[in-house]
């Protein structure tokens, strides 16, 4: 398990990470979202031992990451702009990494390259941005590490490739318990792959929750009543957000689904239905409750 405790990182006067405490459980996909400059990359660089924390700690299974070769050998870091050796080919990069990662599997790499249609002996310099992204993921998966840290890795991948990569992640998680940590500024990219999501903003972590927990605990209700306004009986619900257009009300309610249905039925609306919330909507709701305008933070609206 990766654990960050009161992790702080400063660049001069700028506090990039401010007392962040978070846990990344093994065999789960951890999504790290936040706007540009929120501190996602800094967090990953601290986790991967590139940056030395100015305060707090980052540990993997109780061992500090920074300058611990054995701990660093347990993860593979893919930066948002991955570097490849000059004039190298995918296979040469594989051999390069193979010298560092004892479990690096060249056969796996060859297989992956074939599956993704990447020429194994072509100079990487001639690859498109998307091909390089794919290659860096394939190299990371072939390294056989326990963790793979991806910084904006899905940016630049077309939907098909993105789906293929996600499938690979799932397969590796299934086969050998890989734990991917994926940073992105786009919540929609993480929605269908992450088990747990952390939201970073201005160096601090706004929330860190299991997606299932988030989805199960928050509901969206669209309902129409005979009278204007909400019936007083609905006051028993934990309504965290409400919106009305005439007699059509949209409510975001926190609580158990059955209990909510029972209350809704008791007030006899003309019409009501519970609509599943997207991850994006859940975040918007949760963070607005916390006093942040999530649309600006994540969606850029």
């Amino acid at each position, binding site marked *: 398990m990766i654990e960050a405790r009161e992790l702080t990182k400063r*660049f001069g006067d700028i506090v990039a990470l401010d007392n962040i405490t978070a846990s990344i459980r093994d065999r789960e996909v951890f999504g790290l979202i936040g706007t540009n400059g929120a501190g996602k990359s800094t967090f990953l660089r601290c986790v991967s031992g590139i940056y030395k924390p100015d305060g707090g700690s980052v540990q993997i299974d109780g061992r500090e990451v920074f300058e611990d070769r054995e701990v660093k050998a347990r993860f593979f870091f893919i930066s948002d702009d991955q570097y490849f050796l000059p004039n190298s080919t995918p296979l040469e990069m594989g051999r390069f990494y193979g010298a*560092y990662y004892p479990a690096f599997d060249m056969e796996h790499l060859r297989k992956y390259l074939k599956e993704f249609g990447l020429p194994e002996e072509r100079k990487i310099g001639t690859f498109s941005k998307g091909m390089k992204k794919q290659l860096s993921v394939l190299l990371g998966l072939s390294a056989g590490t326990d963790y793979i840290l991806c910084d904006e890795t899905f940016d630049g991948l077309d939907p098909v490739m993105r789906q293929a990569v996600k499938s690979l992640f799932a397969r590796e998680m299934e086969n050998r318990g890989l734990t991917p940590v994926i940073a992105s500024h786009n919540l929609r990219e993480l929605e269908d792959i992450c088990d747990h999501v952390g939201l970073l903003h201005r160096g601090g972590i706004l929330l860190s929750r299991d997606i299932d927990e988030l989805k199960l605990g928050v509901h969206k209700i669209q309902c129409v009543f005979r009278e204007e306004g909400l019936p007083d009986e609905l006051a028993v619900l934990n309504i965290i957000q409400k919106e009305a257009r005439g007699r059509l009300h949209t409510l975001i309610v926190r609580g158990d689904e059955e209990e909510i249905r029972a209350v809704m039925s008791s007030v006899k609306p003309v019409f009501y239905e519970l609509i599943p919330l997207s991850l994006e909507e859940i975040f918007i709701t949760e963070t607005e409750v916390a006093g942040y305008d999530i649309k600006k933070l994540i969606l850029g609206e």
Partner: protein
Amino acid sequence: MTSRSLSSENKKHTGISMGALIRQGLRGHMALLLLGLVVMLFNYPVNLAMRLTETSRNFTGLEVVHEAASAAAVEQEALSTIGGADGPTSIFVAEKQVETLAGRLTEEANQVLLGNATLIPLIVGVAALLCAFSMFRWTYSRRQTDFYQALPVSRGKRFLASYLGGFLIMLICYAAGLLGALLTAAVFQVQDLMLVQAVLVNAGYLLQFLLIYTVTIIAILLCGNLAVGVMSAAWILGVGPVLYGLIYALKTASFDTLYDPAGKEDLLQYLSPVKYLVEYTYYPNMLGRQPDLSPGAFARLYGETAPHTVNILLLSAALTVLTFGIAFWLFRKRASEGAGNALAFPKVAMPIRILTTVAAAVYLSLFGFSMESLPWIIFLALAGALIVHGLMEGIFHLDVKAVLAHKLELLICMLLSVGLACIFWFDLPGINSWLPKQQEVASVSIYAPGYTQDSTEAVSQAESYYGRYGTEDYDPEGVYEARYYQTNSLAPRMALTEPAAVEAALKLGAEGVRQNNQNSRGERLDYDSREYVRVIYRMKDGKVNDRDFYVSKDTLRELIPELFAMEEYKEAAYPILTVPEEAAGSFGFAPARNVEVEDLPGWEVQDDMYYIYYMGEERQAYGPAGDREEFSQKLLTALQEDIREMDYQELKEYFNEQQARDERTGEDIPAADRSCLVYVTKEEITSRSLIPEERYGYDYVDTYPILDSFDHVKEVLAEYGLSL
């Protein structure tokens, strides 16, 4: 395989080996390696092949003799030019040369192997910079920093791999070059190569490479950006000599009475590793002439230069270890986020800014010194500080809008610059007006080359011993260069303790200070009626104050004969006076133009003083046939007695006569009309015996014109059948 089993396997894995890391590093720098190989192959085997071919094609024994003679004449001419009217009167002796082609080829090959006929000093310096930047430039790239620092390798191991990789590139190229040279020599069937010396010399060059390479790495690691890194390297490699130059220029511009403005600040130059490389280049140059590698022989032949070279090497080695430790520490401490920034260690910014700003501003104010204008000095210091500080701010912030980022610091820099310039302008330390109290002075030296032009001719002859007798002046550049400075070598050797001498020195000092004050007030000195005099005051507390003054000629006319009459003055001026009889070297007799000794019975041309080239005129030295040891001992004693009795007036008349003749004939050959004794010291003879037969003979031979009063000398010559 499961995740857990993989993890445990990783933990057992010892990580990538150092060898693999270095190999990876080399693979990434193949272009540099190839460039190095090409340069070294041109520097060694190609260069040698061309030289050997040229030598073989042009060789004729006769021409070689002629060339050797010409070289000797040219060297003597250079010495005379540098010495000027007061210059050395030593005579260069070239031995008759009989060379073989094999000998010439061996000499050419040895010169190349020892790096003398190559560009190796330049290559070492440039290669150190290129290798350092090539191996550590990745630290300036955020992408590459992410890439390398995320890999499971400790920073220490990563540093060592990069460091050794750079060194290996140089080593491979160097070895290839030398091996190529050896193969070339074998193809040309060259024999008697100085292989041991070549290994030692080139190992020394590799050490110099390591020192510059390591210091450059420190400069690189302090920064996070290539352009700033290049400036940082230039700064670190140049700061010592630049500061030295600044202090020297300020002292020269301000302290008129200081004999040696360099002073101890000369040591500042040793802050730069380039200085060690430059100093070291003298070593192989001399070693090329030295077939015997034993320390004793080396010391005998090259005097004080051998220990100096050893010191340079030891210092280079110690500094390499020290700077390696600093570089290693910096690399481990260097934050990865420094990549892309101007500085990776922001704390060094302020001291570097202040030092650079103040030094540059004061440098600029030197134009004000040359204009002798205080307002200009202040203006230039202020403007210089403003401009340079702004430039530094812009560079460090990578933002031109940040030129006034630290206003208080700028103000301090301006005040420091103006203050420092004013300290020198107003001579606040009181250097120019300093004079000692008589009771504080232990001994003095007085040397007035200008006035005593008519007397120091004989003095400077005696001074040519300097370099063999080298006492106070340390001459790291070798005995040849020592000759160039010999006009001033009398002063440090002299230590007059007689009260009259001390009084004379104080009197000269007082007048010199007064004259200097007049000059400073704008009352220009009349240099036609004044002469330069160097006075050294050695204080009882051990301090030495070495001063230059301008005093009136009348003052010197009064003082010089008094000094000449002092025993200790004469002994200082003529070191031959203190040579014991048993340490006598070898004397010869060089007849004046109008003296014929061809038919002198029992005399012969001296084999070891075969040709004398003196101001372009060829003369021969003669000696009695057979063992000349007794002859030389007798002449030494006789000459010592004659010099002790020599009257200043006679010496002056002799040189007046010579000067009149020179003016009349335009020949400028003072001793041409008078027979001389020619003397080679015992040390010179010993050194000469170490040089192969085909090389030049004695480097220097001293001449003593035989004055009319030299009765003792004449008696000895008459005893051997030569009557003057």
